[in-house]
């Protein structure tokens, strides 16, 4: 048998070879160098500890082995992440959003920014953002997972807003603030204010008895899930709910399935519908565009009816508390760049919906009229928020004018995906060539 410490030394050398073979080289369209440096730093720190660990200290040897395993697993997953398996325009915008939420140290922003890699897995419900919390790390590495078959289904990807809520909970200072100002407010007066309240409610509602660690775990997880639902809605906007309901309806068609890790789905639908009403996103009072009102109503009316039929015991959270928590979370999100969703101008949204129904991507870039003596023309970039594109995509799906044979769900998703891509390209171009004219030799 190999002596454990010798074995670990050998494995550290193996991982060094693995690292040099893989992450040292180009990785997708992202920079592999940052991943390489982070993994190499982790490996160096682990190797140094393996050198000095006492051969007789099996607990430490075991813990180092576990950390070395974790590093090997991370490198392998990064190596296997193929940008071609998912919508990379969407991956880029979600990365920017997650970064705004989870920048750890403002003073050292960028230097200690977490790293994100994207991968695809089989199955419709594999959406995930794994926040790394137990690794020996300098910069945290997060893995965002999309369903492989949903490569272009960007309208469903808004569910990742919920998962970014979990990322926020991985940052202790932010989590503390979110717990105090949002989650506690949201759940005030509900059976989820203490483990004992939850225990009593579970016995009464599900005839389930949880105690000790299982009760503590369920209590923490359920509270976090409600928070993440509200968080997802506020960062992704109105298109969060149709994606959420589409997926959860397949996961739990009755909405009352017992799970120790997630609260009843019906109670979550109910909370989200209340939040939607508070935000005036389901009716959008004052907006008369029929192009918007008709699909908005067609999309939300069945959800409204479904929620109104939810039994009182599953309408767990008080709408007044939902309102207070929504306001509190909006205040917190306002300081995180453009993370908080803002409703579009109705005319802009109307234009995007019309473009999609005509089968064209939604970006409408203008070229400014000739000006000055040179008669040069300039490109005007008025960036469209990707969330407005997705909102328009959902409205196009529910629009009576959609030719369902010609403009399939796939095509609308694809158009939205292209729109996000075009917007990114225009913004990149605009950033670099803002002062350059589109054409310098224009004839009258």
């Amino acid at each position, binding site marked *: 048998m190999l002596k454990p410490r010798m074995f670990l030394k050998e494995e550290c050398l193996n991982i060094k070879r693995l690292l040099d073979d893989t992450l040292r080289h180009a990785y997708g369209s992202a920079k592999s160098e940052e991943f390489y*440096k982070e993994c190499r730093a982790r490996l*160096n720190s682990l190797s140094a500890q393996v050198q000095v660990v006492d051969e007789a200290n099996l607990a430490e040897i075991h813990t180092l082995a576990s950390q070395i395993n974790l590093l090997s697993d991370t490198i392998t997953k990064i190596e296997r992440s193929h940008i071609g398996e998912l919508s990379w325009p969407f991956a880029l915008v979600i990365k920017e959003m997650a970064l705004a939420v989870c920048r750890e140290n403002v003073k050292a922003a960028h230097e200690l920014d977490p790293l994100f890699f994207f991968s695809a897995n089989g199955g419709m419900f594999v959406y995930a953002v794994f926040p790394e919390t137990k690794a*020996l790390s300098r910069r945290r590495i997060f893995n965002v997972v999309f369903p492989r078959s949903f490569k272009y289904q960007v309208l469903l990807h808004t*569910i990742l807003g919920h998962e970014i809520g*979990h*990322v926020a909970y991985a940052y*202790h200072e932010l*989590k*503390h603030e979110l717990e105090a100002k949002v989650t506690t407010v949201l759940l005030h007066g509900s059976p989820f204010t203490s483990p004992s309240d939850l225990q009593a409610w579970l016995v009464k509602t599900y005839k389930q008895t949880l105690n000790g660690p299982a009760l503590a775990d369920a209590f923490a997880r359920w509270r976090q899930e409600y928070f993440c639902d509200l968080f997802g809605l506020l960062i992704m906007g109105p298109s969060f709910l149709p994606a959420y309901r589409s997926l959860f309806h397949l996961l739990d068609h009755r909405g009352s399935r017992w799970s120790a890790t997630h609260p009843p789905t019906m109670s979550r639908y109910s909370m989200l519908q209340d939040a939607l009403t508070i935000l005036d996103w389901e009716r959008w009072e004052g907006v008369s565009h029929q192009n918007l009102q008709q699909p908005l109503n067609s999309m939300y009316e069945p959800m409204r009816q479904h929620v109104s039929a939810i039994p009182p015991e599953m309408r767990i959270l008080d709408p007044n508390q939902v309102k207070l928590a929504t306001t509190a979370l909006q205040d917190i999100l306002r300081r995180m760049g453009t993370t908080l969703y803002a409703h579009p101008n109705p005319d802009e949204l109307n234009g995007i919906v019309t473009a999609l129904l005509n089968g064209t991507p939604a970006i409408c870039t203008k070229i400014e009229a000739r000006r000055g003596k040179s008669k040069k023309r300039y490109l005007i970039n008025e960036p469209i928020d990707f969330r407005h594109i997705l909102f328009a995509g959902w409205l196009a799906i529910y629009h009576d004018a959609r030719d369902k044979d010609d403009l399939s769900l796939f095509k609308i998703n694809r158009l939205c995906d292209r729109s996000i891509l075009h917007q990114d390209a225009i913004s990149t171009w605009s950033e670099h060539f803002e002062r350059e004219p589109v054409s310098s030799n224009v004839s009258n």
Partner: protein
Amino acid sequence: MLVAESNQQGEMRVLYGILARAAMERFGKVPKEETESRDIYFLGILRLLDMYRFDSIKSGAPVGILETPTFHPDYLASEQEDQSAIENALASTHASMRPNQNDKNAFVEEVKAALENVHKRGAGASASARAIAKEFLEGLIQELKRSK
């Protein structure tokens, strides 16, 4: 089970013990040497202090997956025992260093400032920062050992 969520008996408390010891061993070294490893050891301890300050140690790891598998009660019990041991070790270190100071925030601020000073300046750190950081790390190592 996900590798990222694996947690053997008492693993995290052992890991923090290793980190604290590794940070201690780098007190006298020039910060330019093995910078990245040095960052990892000190950052691990600084993050732990934030978890203590914000009562995050026992509240469980965040999950970011649509449909999470239910964890086995034995796993949960082991994980929570581990978390309690870490929290108790920090609380005991706090109590022994500053018996009259109940404010976690003030304690963490003081220790973090000392650790950051030693982290950045190595042997050039101020004597008081070195003394506070050393007392904290030694206390933590002892308390974590005691909990095994």
